[in-house]
């Protein structure tokens, strides 16, 4: 399966990817801005995400609440998301509505600030505070999203601090911050635009040039602090959290090869061998055989700079203590180090990953997002078509080399949740 890819760059630096597919009258528009929580300044944790909310509040030619409404009236779906190192905005629309989707994206890239008001900022600040309560504070284990990066990255590292931000820092965000962030990061030369689905390339190119062509290039963004990290922690970091939870849960993280690097594919396959679906090592041993865990999985964060994380996530059965959960999980990791993976395990993992990839590529929105991802991180969306081959090329020896170098006791960070009400664990 090959996804068609055509690219061009506007004089202002915007990298545009077109991927035609006429099997349904649907077109996806997807923008990645190369800015995330890593780019926030001290005292402004959560700002990149709060800023994402502001992009839905209208722009010079779009009234308050009108952005969502115009896309929904067009019959489209839309959203945005913020991650450590990027922010994306996307909509999927009936293909005859491509012009309005591109126009909306260009209006907020070119002219967001005339529409900004203190009242809009105050409203979204409160909305985001409610999002924080909803996703972090009032959810069991909800703090893992900020505790694990804080444990795994050193304090001065751009990935260390909370993505959703502290209540205090959210309270500090000002309209001046909005203006500065917009001018610095929301520029065509710091963005990629992907259009995937049913469209005519000539028309699409003409629309992109018309709407985005006159947006000026940015003045460049300040360099991030040094992202590079040693490939291992050099120790076993541990944090135990007593919390309002009923069952112990362990997050065990390993520094891992960054997304898209030569060793990434072996690391990703290692994650699938350990914790993808019921046939994985952890599910088989901890859930099925020894019945110490109610659930077990493993996955990578897919960070493209500094260091990625491979994370094992295991929740205890009601009668199992935190100590036992951790000992049994670590025991499985050590068993993997001693036994190594088999070719059959690697084959299972690759087959599952490959099917998941093809399944995802059915959706225009998913195709556009993956193309934007490779365009943002590597300047080359065509890399999406090499992914299956890169996975197929992974051998048991390569996975074992990764296991040997990255799963040892000198490269672990464990975040262990323990019920505050100790009677819940026997």
């Amino acid at each position: 399966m090959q996804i068609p890819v055509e690219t061009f760059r506007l004089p202002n630096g915007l990298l545009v990817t077109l991927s035609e597919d006429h099997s349904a009258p649907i077109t996806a528009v997807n923008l990645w801005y190369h800015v995330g929580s890593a780019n926030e300044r001290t005292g402004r944790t959560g700002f990149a995400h709060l800023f994402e909310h502001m992009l839905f509040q209208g722009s010079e030619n779009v009234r308050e609440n009108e952005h969502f409404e115009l896309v929904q009236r067009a019959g489209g779906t839309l959203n945005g998301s913020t991650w450590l190192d990027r922010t994306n905005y996307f909509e999927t629309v009936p293909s005859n509505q491509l012009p309005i989707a591109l126009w909306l994206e260009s209006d907020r890239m070119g002219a967001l600030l005339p529409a900004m008001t203190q009242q809009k900022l105050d409203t979204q600040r409160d909305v985001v505070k409610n999002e924080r309560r909803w996703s972090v504070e009032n959810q069991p284990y909800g703090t893992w999203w900020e505790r694990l990066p804080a444990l795994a990255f050193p304090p001065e590292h751009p990935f260390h601090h909370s993505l959703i931000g502290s209540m205090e820092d959210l309270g500090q965000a000002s309209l001046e911050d909005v203006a500065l962030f917009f001018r610095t990061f929301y520029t065509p030369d710091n963005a990629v635009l992907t259009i995937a689905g049913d469209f005519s390339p000539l028309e699409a190119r003409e629309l992109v040039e018309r709407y985005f062509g006159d947006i000026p290039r940015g003045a460049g963004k300040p360099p991030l602090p040094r992202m590079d990290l040693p490939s291992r922690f050099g120790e076993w970091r541990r944090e135990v959290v007593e919390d309002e939870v009923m069952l112990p849960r362990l997050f065990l993280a390993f520094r891992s090869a960054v997304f898209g690097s030569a060793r990434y594919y072996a690391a990703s396959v290692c994650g699938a061998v350990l914790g993808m679906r019921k046939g994985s090592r952890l599910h088989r041993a901890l859930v099925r055989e020894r019945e110490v865990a109610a659930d077990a999985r493993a996955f990578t964060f897919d960070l493209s700079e500094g260091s990625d994380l491979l994370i094992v996530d295991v929740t205890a059965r009601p009668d199992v203590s935190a100590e036992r959960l951790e000992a049994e999980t670590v025991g499985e990791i050590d068993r993997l180090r001693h036994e190594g993976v088999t070719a059959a395990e690697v084959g299972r993992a690759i087959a599952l990953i490959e099917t998941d990839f093809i399944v995802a590529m059915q959706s225009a929105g998913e195709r556009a997002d993956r193309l934007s991802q490779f365009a943002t991180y590597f300047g080359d969306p065509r890399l999406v078509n090499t992914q299956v081959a890169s996975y197929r090329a992974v051998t048991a020896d390569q996975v074992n080399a990764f296991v040997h170098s990255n799963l040892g006791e000198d490269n672990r960070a464990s975040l262990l949740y323990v019920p505050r009400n100790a009677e819940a664990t026997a």
Partner: protein
Amino acid sequence: MTNHSRPGPGPRRDYRFPAVVRLGLANGLRVVVAPMPRLPLVTVLALVDAGATCDGPSNEGVASLTAQALGEGTARLEATELTDQFEALGSGFDAGGDWDGTLASLTVTPSRLETAVMLLGEVLMTPRFSERDVLRIRAERLADLLQQQVEPRGLAEDRFAEYLYVPGSRYGVPCDGSARTVGALETETVKAFHRARYVPQVTTLIFVGDVAPEPAVRLAERALGAWMGEALVAAPVDDRVRGGGPRVHIVGKPDAPQTELRVGHRGLSRAHPDYFSIAVMNALLGGLFSSRINLNLRERHAFTYGAKSAFEWRRGAGPFVVATAVKTDVTAAAAREILAEIDTMRLETVTAGELSLATDYLDGVFPIRYETTHAVAQALAAAEVFALGEDYYSLYRERIRAVTAEDVHRVAEQHLHPREIVIVAVGDASAIQGPLEALGVGPVEVHGVKQGEEDVP
């Protein structure tokens, strides 16, 4: 700087929902095939008319437990062997039960389809249900239920149903069962449920993707043609509600920074002829991001990250419910705004501009909903479960477009019931009880997080 005028749409391009072929095997099993040959993938989905409403009294949760235990081996293969065989095909095996049916599905590349369907047939006809595996799956569900004591969303949803429906209604107990009922389920109960309910006459095998009808039917015959069994007649679900006027139930979660709020009442059966008008009305009330309730609670008042309303469509009358999570100190204010939006929807006819927001959205988004083989397979399963008719998906957009502002007004008046409102608030009781009482909606009761901690009248 960017003074380009706002563009309009181009000419709309045709969309057709995949053509569907429906056939039957001699043993009564239905086969539904929808070729969608875009990518080298086929989704196979087995629908068995054995949902939670078939559980029977005191066995609540058995349909769901049976569905989850299906993947734990067959007479021939142990659980780990079965998993290995599925996953070697590049596919997980997913099975689960909802109110009106059990679905088991997998998605594979065409070259692996034959092996996959033969395995699926084996699972449906001869599941292993070993004591150890069934008890383990049961323990996993009990772990979920234990977790729910500190998980406010699931707790709010379950309590809303419990306080809404009459005692004894299947809809008053979670689809997957409660701690009391699941804890009492035995392996033999699961086996008996499978024997009685998993029969070819109430099973539909759905193929969607890179596959042609004739080979699919031949494959269904090979995999499931020998399956025998007689269907039981299912009793209709008791979907009556407690009634007695508006009520407020607080589920105390001390120090919660937020209140999980549910506001609603009994909804309607999926078979109700007003379905399309209600879909449009609900989209405007709370179904869309740009709906009245979401714009009010999120964008005007900043009470919440989001608010939604929904009619939960089942064969019986599922609930109509508005769901949101709001900052503790605005709990009563948020409930008041929700009730006011319900009142306004009943009192005033929507404008043509507002109507077209919903009809244009529901019409336009239709092809986007069915991009994947799995989404089409699920849609075809819903058509079977609710007997929607063969032309349902080809007529859907036309029917949405036919809804008028008068229809919306009429169904709002007829099917939104302010005098039967049940409010459930999971949060800090000491902070929200007074304001909720002052709201004057109805009597306020406070409950504990653990089931049975307080008497529920």
